């Protein structure tokens, strides 16, 4: 599997462009635009090739540390270092535990496709077996938070306690209805609708990216299960009063009444005062 080739191929035209045009007048934004184009091109090709890699390796079914190690070397080591020690491009993974891998790789955030304010959720690049192989490999190198046990993920806990914990610990970033919210400098807390229970648990336990850690001493596993129960309740219960308008509160309600409410009524007034033929 040769990732180097497409990457350099994609970079070349961009570079040529730059040298050719640097002689003439160039808009200062042009450089920035070219870098973006170049990054997108490399990222896109990279993503393409890793997906095909997935298809090839999926034949190997057994999830073992050894397989995980190979996957890690091929897909993660460039940024995180062969020994998880981290590089300039990526943080160390020593001690992050299996739960971190389960969240980051299992939600598609890793491998990173493009730089930006934060890693985005995107289609998962590996099979479930591969994700757990990677997780086991990372966990084997240094102890860290483990993948949650299934008993906490059933969503059959106390929704009421979960809702209260959610309001106190989560709602300020993720919104009370789990609709997500803004952070500083273009970062954001993602919406929580339809997120798999294990990923919710992983996130609370490990605190991915900007999110703080909620370890088991802060929010116990039973309490985490209750939070998951509440989120499941939100997912499964339809918005009671009708369409929820994105659960964005007064802003979407205000826009709705101006555009559709008052807009519709103005249309009615035009009909009302038009002369009948």
């Amino acid at each position: 599997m040769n990732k180097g080739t497409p990457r350099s191929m994609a970079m070349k035209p961009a570079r040529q462009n730059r040298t050719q045009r640097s002689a003439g007048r160039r808009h200062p934004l042009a450089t920035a635009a070219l870098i973006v184009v170049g990054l997108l091109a490399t990222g896109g090709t990279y993503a393409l090739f890793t997906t095909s890699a997935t298809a090839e390796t999926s034949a190997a079914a057994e999830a073992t540390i050894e397989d995980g190690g190979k996957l890690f070397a091929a897909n993660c080591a460039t940024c995180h270092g062969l020994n998880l020690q981290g590089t300039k491009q990526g943080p160390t993974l020593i001690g992050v535990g299996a739960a971190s891998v389960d969240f980051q790789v299992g939600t598609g955030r890793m491998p990173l496709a493009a730089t930006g304010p934060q890693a985005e959720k995107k289609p998962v690049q590996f099979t479930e077996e591969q994700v757990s192989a990677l997780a086991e490999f990372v966990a084997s190198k240094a102890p860290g938070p483990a993948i949650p046990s299934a008993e906490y993920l059933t969503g059959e806990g106390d929704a009421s306690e979960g809702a209260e914990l959610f309001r106190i610990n989560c709602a300020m970033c993720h919104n009370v209805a789990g609709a997500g919210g803004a952070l500083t400098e273009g970062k954001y807390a993602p919406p929580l609708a339809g997120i798999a229970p294990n990923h919710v648990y992983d996130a609370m336990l490990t605190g991915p990216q900007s999110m703080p850690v909620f370890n088991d001493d802060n929010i116990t596993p039973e309490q985490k299960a209750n939070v998951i129960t509440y989120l499941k309740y939100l997912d499964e219960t339809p918005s009671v009063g009708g369409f929820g308008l994105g659960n964005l509160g007064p802003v979407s309600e205000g826009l709705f009444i101006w555009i559709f409410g008052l807009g519709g009524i103005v249309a009615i007034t035009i009909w009302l005062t038009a002369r009948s033929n």
Partner: protein
Amino acid sequence: MANDHDGTPDSSIVGTTVEKYGNNPPPAGTAVVASDRIQNPGFEPYRPRVADLDPAVEKAQERRVSALFFVSIIGSVMAVAVYIAFPIVPGDMGSVRLNNLLLGISIALGLLAVGVGAVHWSKALMDGHDMVEQRHGTRGTDATRAKAVEVFTLGNKESGFGRRTLIRNTLIGALVVSPVPAIALFRDLAPSEDPVPLLKHTLWAKGVRLTRDPSGTPIKASEVTLGSAFHVIPEGLEESEHPLEEKAKAAVLVMRLKPADLNVSAGREDWNYEGIIAYSKICTHVGCPVALYEKQTHHLLCPCHQSQFDITQEAAVIFGPAKRPLPQLPISVDAEGYLVARSDFTEPVGPSFWERKL
């Protein structure tokens, strides 16, 4: 009008507003009245509607209107049926949704159909000719105004309101002062004690344990791992006299950073415990809870007005309308390893107020 006026040369009217424009039109200001402006062509001839000409169409329109009224009756009756047929099952949100949806749609049908029917009736079948009504100047006629002035003049003469200035002035004084008791009455909207000392103190004091919100269980220093954020209330909050009021001042966010990341100013060296720090959650702008902690940048963001505080710089404001840093709660650990406050906050928490430093 002019004759009316001249016929009654009442000295009391002269110089009053009745005289203002006399029988001249009011001034037009700087408006240009062109002599050769285009003249109003008068009304357009009436264009008959289809229903005016064709009795068959008229009949059809009539049927349409009554059909709409009939639909309205169906809608209203349906609403009653839905009310009975789709009850709310306690705890089943789906049943509430269905009840809301069907009941609302039926009532809306009943209302919309009768409304549309009435409007259609007026548009298609009622007389379609434009009608004209003349306007008259808004001001009363000179005769009416003279009468009104006379009423006041008589009132003044018979009461002596203008002449007896002592009575008049004391009356005005009495009326001005009369609402004063009402202002005093509002004093007891709040208890008699001075609010300022209350705003300057919270439940925190030396040795008060930091406990989890909402359970109230104490927190060991060892439990606050790197990158954690704990939402904290003082021990014994629930047992206090006014829990919500105390919580509104005492809510605290506890985080743990690497001690090397903290820039500690002189006098605050022992306010953190091995990188565990506690800051008031109440924004110094207008008091929203500032609880959006970004683990990587160590910034706190207020979701209401976007003030940002840098935890590594003792919560200094780095963006937004707030001015002051969030107050820091000095903390330490007790003999059992639980986090405790070293003292109350050293300054008032929450939004600024006039007497904050007085």
